[in-house]
């Protein structure tokens, strides 16, 4: 049981380091949504189901939608370097 948590934490930290090196900002937002889902699973391991439901809906669904709306409104011929 403890090894599941070990692999989960390793995967989340590797994804977090990967966000630093990703150039395209849309890919970084998708990886951040996966990190939010991993945090929600950690809350279940810590015996807090109320907090896990709240984090799964707010952090993984709503925040990703708002980021994608903001990215689609700030692209264009005057944006910074195309990647």
């Amino acid at each position, binding site marked *: 049981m403890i090894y599941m948590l070990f692999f989960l934490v390793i995967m989340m930290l590797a994804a977090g380091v990967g966000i630093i090196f990703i150039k395209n900002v849309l890919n970084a937002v998708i990886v951040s949504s996966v990190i939010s889902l991993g945090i929600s699973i950690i809350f279940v391991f810590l015996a807090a189901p109320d907090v896990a439901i709240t984090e799964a809906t707010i952090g993984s669904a709503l925040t990703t939608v708002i980021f994608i709306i903001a990215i689609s*409104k700030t692209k264009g011929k005057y944006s910074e370097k195309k990647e």
Partner: protein
Amino acid sequence: MRKLIGLILIFGFAFYMFTIVAAIVIPSDSSEKKSVGIDILQNSVRQTGAANAVTSIVVLYRGFDTLGEVTVLFLSALGIALLMKGGRSFKHKTEDESFILKTGSHLLFPFMFLFGIYIIAHGHLTPGGGFPGGVIIATGFFIVLMTSDVFKFRDYFLTIIEGFAGLSFIVLGIVGLFTPEKSFLVNFMNKGVFNTVFSAGIIPLIYAAIGIKVSSELSGAVGNLFVSKYGRRSENE
């Protein structure tokens, strides 16, 4: 240059946390704790009648913090509406979405609505409550808004519903000033039978008000972000 200074600061902070703070936090024996939370666990079923201890803390023992949180959400939705409105309204024209998206979103919306109402109504028995239930209903709303060509975004009714829900939260608190205990947000209804839907006094009513307020507020805020005239699509005017 910024990356170098950033790395030095980060390593300093991580070194401090892992050597000094970890020696205090990690070996502390966590099987014998004396805190306010353990005291609340022993008395919460007798005093409030709710089966979910976290819900009774959020609504009754710490109800004033929930009022502050509702205020912060209202301020952020107000800020988004102030920044994103202005000038003439922008008629948002979707490109030709695929047929699966259009019909799929219309079929999915009643189930998400029903699921959100279930989580709000059973907040004192199972994990959940007003906040995640309201967010689920708002997610159902803007799946339909973003992929449909039949529904338009009108925020007139959403603001009226949100105002009445917020007002009813405050009115439920002020009624407590006229009971013999004379304080804001007191539990003045009777506790009912344990572990049924109509129990735990005032908690289902407050969570219903919070759920309606959060769902209408968030769908209004995200709808404002989506149909605003600032941004890329208005370049070719």
